[in-house]
Structure formats: C-alpha cells, structure tokens
C-alpha cells in the first residue's frame, strides 16, 4: 500500500514535469520536541515526541484540473532506536465534469460539519495521537484514500465521498501516550495494547459519506448521511478476543450562519449502532443522539472567542446499566461537553496566543490546549505549547490521558 502511495506521488510529479508544465514546490522543515510533565507514566519512550519533519508539496495546474501532493518525511528520535518514516498526506487529482460536477480523487483530507475540534457528522479519520503530542493542528486530520464528488446546482449542492477501504482514527497506543484499558481497568502502555481487526476489505465494508447543502437566508443548512463503522474500536469481538470497529450509520444535520455580530452553529446526529440495534449487546456500543450548539465572535480587536456545548444522549441506557460489568465506569445517560477557544493576536499578528479548553461536567474530566506562536520572519515560526489532561476517573475520554501532560516546542522553517 505504502509503495502505491509513493508511486502516486512520483507519478504526479513526473507527469506534471514531463508535460513541460509548471510544477510549484513548497513546504517546510520542522523540529518538534516535547517533554512529559508526569514521571509515573508507564509508556516506553523517554520523550512523547522528538522529531524532525520535512514536508514537500507539489502542485500543478493543468488545463482540465489540478494535481496536488503533500509528502512528509519524519526522522523520529523519541524511541530507543531512531526511525525514519514517510507518509503521503495528500495526493490527488481534481477535475471538473461538465459545469456542475467537481471530482477530487486520491489520498485526501476530508472535513465537514460545524464543530470546532468536536465532530458529529464528520466521520472522517482523525489522528488524536498527533493532536495530543503538539504537532500542528493540520495533523488532527488523517488522510483517507477516497473519491469525492460534488454536484452543484442553484438549489443546492450534493457531495458524496466514497472511501473504498475503511480508514480508522489514529489513537494513542501506549508508545508515546498511555491510555485506559477496560480489560485491565488501568492506564497502560503499549505492552497491553491490542490492535483492533479492521473490517474485511470488501465492497460492502467501504465507507460512504454524503452531504446535501443549501443556503437559507444568512444561514447554510446541510443534511448528512454516513454508512460505515465507528472510527474508534469501541466494540469487542469475543471469539477473536480483540477490539473491533462496530458498524455505524449516522443521520444528521447542521445549520450555520451570522447572528448577533458573530457566527452561530447548530449540529445534530443520530448514531445508529448497526451491530447493537436493541442496545442489549454488552460488547457493542448503544445507539445515541448527539447535539451541539456553538457561538463565536470577536470580543475586542484581535481577540476572538467561542463556546460550544455538546450533549451525547445514549439510547437504551437502562440496558447499558444492566450489561455493565461491576467494576466498569458508569457514564451518564446524557454526557455533556463544554468547550471554549480564545485566540489573541499581538504585535501586528506576529504573535498568536491560543487557549482551547474541553470540560465534561458529566465525566468530570478536561483537556486544555495552550499555545503561543511567534513569527520571527515570514519563514521562521517558533511555537511553544502544553497539553494538559485531568479527570476524576481514569476510564473517561480525557481522564484516561491524565498521565500524559506535556509541553512542547516547535520550530518551523517554511519555503
């Protein structure tokens, strides 16, 4: 698979170059170093992150479309033995069919919905490992090999994304970030990490995500449908004794627009757990209803803030209570999550201070992302930041990472 990806990159570059057409190159060179604030962490690596990254981007505009590729080379020194890794972050062709159809085919980053760092209808792959380690925000989104087709007409637009091979989220696996293992009921390292089985690579196991959008006055309204799997392995296969990705359908809607000098967004979704339709399988997640409201506005010159409130309401909660093992953490039927983001620009936008806080009053856990970035020149940027987790219980979404508090420093040279 990885060879195919490199092949795609090389093909895009050679095709573009051999056609004697212009290929634009740019990218960056980046050093990232992080340190743990908790010494009791069971993980294997000495540092959560210590890496040098080289990103090369190549772009070509043709007569009929565009080719784009983004390739990352990483020298990773966090482990005992340094390794060299590479990943094709994006490699796609974009072209138009007729006047009303846009196609984007290849490896790509996908993103929709209205939430700020929280997602309901966006069932595209995320990389929480990178997110928690202090890599740039762009790394929260993991690529998928997919075909995206947009159909536009005056009434609205229809977007269909077909991902032939299911692409899961990238989650902390105990190498750099410890996590909670429900089997052992403790925070563990990679030694007790069990890789989940991916669904068989069959046509019926491919992912389909669709969106129907249109403008309604000052607002934009969208309806969504997703058919695929939960992106986290939250089910358990008793025969294989391994975590699995349960089948999932999501039906949802969003509304976003300008209001009261700011931007308001509303999002809702019904998570239909296809492997546990009645909610009586203790090894599979129950269906749930998810809702979110958010508002953002500029509070003062160069100061922007937002707040979000999300509620995840579990269906068949009484059955969930019956099924629970006696030692397990019991979540609330309605799980609330509050978030806030504050961004302050200083010194003619050369300095960016950012605070993002997640707090769940139901789970009594929280996660803070704090960072400050200084643009020394157009090319050189220095960022320092911290990721702080806390929780009353080590089994909750953020509580499980309570031993992973870290600070990091990132130096980027763009070209």
């Amino acid at each position, binding site marked *: 698979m990885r060879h195919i990806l490199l092949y795609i990159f090389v093909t895009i570059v050679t095709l573009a170059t051999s056609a004697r057409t212009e290929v634009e190159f740019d990218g960056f060179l980046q050093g990232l170093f992080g340190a743990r604030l908790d010494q009791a962490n069971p993980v294997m690596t000495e540092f959560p992150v210590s890496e040098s990254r080289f990103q090369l981007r190549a772009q070509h505009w043709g007569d009929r479309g565009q080719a784009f590729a983004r390739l990352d080379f990483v020298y990773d020194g966090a482990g005992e033995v340094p390794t060299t890794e590479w990943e094709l972050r994006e490699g796609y062709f974009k072209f138009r069919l007729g006047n009303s159809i846009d196609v984007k085919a290849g490896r790509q980053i996908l993103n929709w919905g209205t939430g700020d760092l929280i997602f309901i209808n966006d069932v595209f792959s995320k990389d929480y490992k990178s997110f928690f380690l202090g890599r740039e925000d762009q790394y929260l*989104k993991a690529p998928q090999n997919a075909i995206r087709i947009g159909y536009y007409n005056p009434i609205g*637009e229809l977007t269909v994304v077909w991902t032939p091979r299911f692409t899961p989220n990238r989650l902390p696996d105990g190498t750099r970030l410890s996590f909670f293992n429900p089997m052992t009921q403790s925070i563990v390292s990679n030694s007790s990490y069990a890789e989940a089985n991916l669904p068989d690579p069959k046509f019926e196991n491919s992912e389909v995500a669709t969106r129907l959008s249109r403008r309604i006055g000052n607002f934009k309204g969208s309806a969504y449908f997703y058919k695929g799997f939960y992106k986290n392995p939250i089910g358990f296969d008793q025969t294989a004794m391994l975590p699995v990705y349960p089948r999932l359908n999501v039906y949802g809607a969003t509304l976003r627009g300008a209001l009261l000098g700011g931007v308001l967004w509303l999002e809702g979704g019904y998570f239909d757990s296809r492997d546990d339709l009645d909610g009586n399988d203790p090894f599979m997640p129950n269906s749930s209803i998810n809702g979110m409201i958010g508002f953002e506005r500029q509070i003062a*010159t160069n100061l922007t803030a937002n707040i979000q409130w999300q509620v995840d309401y579990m269906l068949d909660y009484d059955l969930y209570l019956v099924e629970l093992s006696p030692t397990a953490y019991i979540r609330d039927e309605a799980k609330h999550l509050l978030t806030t983001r504050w961004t302050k620009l200083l010194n*003619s936008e050369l300095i960016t201070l950012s605070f993002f806080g997640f707090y769940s009053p139901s789970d009594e856990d929280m996660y803070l992302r704090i960072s400050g970035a200084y643009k020394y020149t157009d090319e050189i940027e220095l960022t320092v930041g911290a990721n702080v987790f806390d929780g009353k219980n080590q089994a909750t979404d953020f509580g499980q990472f309570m031993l992973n508090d870290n600070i990091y420093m990132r130096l980027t040279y763009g070209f």
Partner: protein
Amino acid sequence: MQKLTSLLLTALFIVALGIPVTAQDATEIMKKSHLAYYYAGDDGLATVNMTIIDKKGRERSREFVMLRLDESDGGNQKYYTYFLKPSDVSRISFMVHKKVDGNDARWIYIPSVDLVKQISADDKNSSFVGSDFSYEDVSGRPWTEDNHTIKSESELDGKAVWVIESIPKKKDKGFARKVSYIDKETFLPLKEEYYNKKDKFIKEMRSVEIKEIEGFLTITHRTMKDIKKNRITHVRFESIDYNVGMTDELFTERYLTNPPAQYIK
C-alpha cells in the same frame, strides 16, 4: 436688440450654471472618488504584492490574487483572495461578501485541513493580514458614513487637489477625522491623513503610482504608514484586468474550496 439681450442673458445663465460644476460639493466629490477608487469596471482582478516594513527595517511580504465583483456602483461587492506567498498561508482562500449597510460575511478555506470556516466579522478596523491596511482600507469605506467638507483647494505633487475633511457620522474606532487630497482631474485620492479622537496624526495613505489600465485610472502602488509604530505597508497591483466577466457563482463555497484556475494560475 431684445433678442440679443435675451440671448446674452441665456449665455450668462449657462456660464453661471457651469460654475457649480467646478466648485463641487464635498460629498459629491467623495462619492466620485470612492467609485473611481473601489468600483472601477464591473469586476476586477489583480495580483497583489504586499510588503510590510517595520521600524527596524525588517520586511515581511504577502502575495495574493484578488478578485472583485460589484453588484452595482457604490453598492455591495464580493471579494475573493487566494494566497500565493508566504508558504505558511499559500493556497488559503478567503472570501468576503461586503454589505454597504450591515456586517460583511467572511469565509476562509484552509486546505491542509479541508476546513471552511465562517469568520465573525464585525470589526472592519482590524488589520488585513497583519498589514497597516484595515479591511475597510482594502475594500473602501462608503462615503455615506462620513460628513465631508472642502477645507481648501491646493496642489500636491504638481496636481490640483481638493483638500477634504471627513468626520464619521457615528463614532468610529478607526479614526475621528480624515483629510483626503483628491485629484481634481481623476478623483483619485493622492493622500489621506487619519487622526484619532485626540486629533493625533495616526496613519497616512499615499498613492505612489497611478496608471491607466484598460481605460481605468488605477492606483497601482500605494502605501499606508502607521505613525506610532513607524511601520509602512506597500501594496503593489500587478496583472490587473477589468471587466473579465466574473459571475456570482465564483464567490461561493464551491470556488472557495476549488480555486478558479483561470484567474489564479
């Protein structure tokens, strides 16, 4: 004889009528100036080079393609900006639906995360991409928002100008008083001085180069100087093209996420 007298009187009357045409009313001049400055053609396209030089002489630059479509002269406009440089913002696109009365709507598309974000935009005075130009300086402040008076008629850089003072009708965060030097021939502003509420000189706009492009007199190089910070921003317009036949469709989310190759290549 009587015929001759009436003819003479008529001629005199016509001449008298002609006088107010030259001694124009300040608001009318500012309206004409605004239209000449910000509404040339029905649409416009340019590659913009922006250089910000701080007091220590350090330079930062941005390069972007800018598309503009007018709904009507002096009315609502749509703007599309596609960043070429520097590399940390390259390929980002930015769209503004400018409303003459009411808040603008702004969207940004960040391709590295495939994110379309609607930006809350009630502060027209905030800096445009870290430069000394505000959003309002880039897309223009409607002449109807200020009261204008002609202070004098004078000369600037060898050109006859009206010196016009503008005071915001409603209290404004950006400035309390503005003095514009409007070229009598072209109606383009050659210089603007901004003063704060303590009547302190805070910033100065200068038209450095004016060229005729496709029949439209265009300021192809202008500067904005922040007096307190001792910083200056140069803006140079290149590859300018007017009336290229843009449509409303270009200024939608479809093109925000799929930049129109014919204009930005």
